[in-house]
């Protein structure tokens, strides 16, 4: 653990440079993630009618099998 960086101060990458590089890479990564996965939020097109349809109207088919299974498990609690 006593080991330390023996390079001259000029050769060491300064903290400011290291942080700048990390911040630039991070900003780019965030942009990529946003563009790839989050740039078209589905919530943008939701209105009161859409929410009412989702919450109030019965779905076209009955409960899905996995929900029934989960319901059965909850019922044993």
């Amino acid at each position, binding site marked *: 653990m006593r080991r330390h*960086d023996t390079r001259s101060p000029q050769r060491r990458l300064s903290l400011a440079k290291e942080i700048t590089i990390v911040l630039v890479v991070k900003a780019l990564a965030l942009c990529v993630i946003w563009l790839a996965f989050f740039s078209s939020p589905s919530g943008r097109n939701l*209105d*009161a009618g859409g929410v*009412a349809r989702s919450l*109030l109207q019965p779905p076209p088919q009955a409960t899905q099998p*996995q*929900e029934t299974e989960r319901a059965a498990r909850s019922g044993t609690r």
Partner: protein
Amino acid sequence: MLPDLELVNVSRLQFAVTALYHFLFVPLTLGLSWILVIMESVYVMTGRAVYKDMTQFWGKLFGINFAMGVTTGITLEFQFGTNWAYYSHYVGDIFGVPLAIEGLMAFFLESTFVGIFFFGWERLSRVGHLMVTFLVALGSNLSALWILIANAWMQHPIGAEFNYETMRMELTSLPEIILNPVAQSKFVHTVAAGYVTASMFVLGVSSWYLLKGRDVAFAIRSFAVAAGFGLASVCSVIVLGDESGYTVGEVQRVKLAAIEAEWHTQHPPAAITAFGIPNEAEERTDYALRIPWVLGLIATRSTDTPITGIMDLNKEAAARIENGMVAYDALQKLRGGDKSDGTRRTFELRKKDLGYGLLLKKYTPNVVDATPEQIRMAAADTIPRVTPLFWAFRIMVGCGLIMLFIFVAAFYFLAVRDLAPQRWLLRIALWSMPLPWIAVEMGWIVAEYGRQPWTIAEVLPTFLSVSNIPASHVYVSLAGFVAFYSGLLIVEVYLLLKYIRLGPSSLGTGRYELEAAEKGAAA
């Protein structure tokens, strides 16, 4: 069509992963900023260079943590619009206000002054720079205040009302949201936990220098600041955690009952289960070690107020679900064009239980015709799983007690000027550095998992909050987040370890050991 539960679970997992990761950075920023204020204040008052060096060195580590942590919370906001569209529509008007203020605080106050902190040493007077450091700390903590106000509203939604015409919750009182009792207790408890985290960090790193015999004058002063601030903070966390417990007892009874595995309502004042193994199948706690009175005193501040147990809360939920079915029926009529006084009155009277009615959507498309069995199953859903909450809470408290011991011991041996021979304490302080992070993450698990099955307590069920998107999309973005955050974590740990190893020599003042060693080697 209702979203499938796989989508709900993976959306929750993604949010949990990003939130827990984000909160690895936040507590250190919150606490280290005040430690810098303390160190720099001593420098301004005494003019001793070692305190300036301490401010600059710990400021470097603060800067690394800040740079790695900044914007990791933004990804949570990405998710609101994409994965949680119904949530965003339903409560966005209210939730968005504190979130926007938090963003403004973070960018215009915190980030601006962090920049001046690093580049203003030669450009500002001593007092002027101290004011900047103070504003960094204030900005960080105020950012936390607003995000915690938003979170507290999800736990205890007051100051808002549901409007059937817009199908969303609308703000009725901003002061009520800001002065939410859950927000107040959550804020002070959370920031105090951040102060403990930073104190343990400084204490642990300083202990390593002391164990190595490196830069002892620098390390012992850093150790002293951390011990004093940490002791005050850990005592605050315990007292404020007690206040938080009282608030939970008042407004989140289900969460309290689940945390304490309180299956049945006890004769007051209730005993606390210090240890036990919750048996969810048989609704009892095996091998329970109970301490009389304590839970009653903590959660009710009285000896005659009962704490409602899970079984009774379940019955209350069933009654509210039946009320919610009536509210749901009235809402359907209102949305269908029946705006008669009778329908409106029925809805107004029962709408506080609409959320309970919505719980039935998991079991039946026709909420108003739910069977007693479906009501029973939906009522069972209102109780979060006991075992994870029970243990997460106890791990958090256990970590807190260990840290209390460390800070008391550190403060005592400093006060009697006998720290140097206590190498066992220095080793414990070093190896206990992960404890505050474990504690704060457990605290968030208790807070958020304990709110289930709701995103907004008693208003909007989690399974109705998600968007209509394929689960595969969320899996892919989750994989992207894991890769991105893992990379950041590796860089953070690398940079922190690098500068911790260099120690105050990284400041280039010529006063510290590694520089002297380098000069010697060069000569």
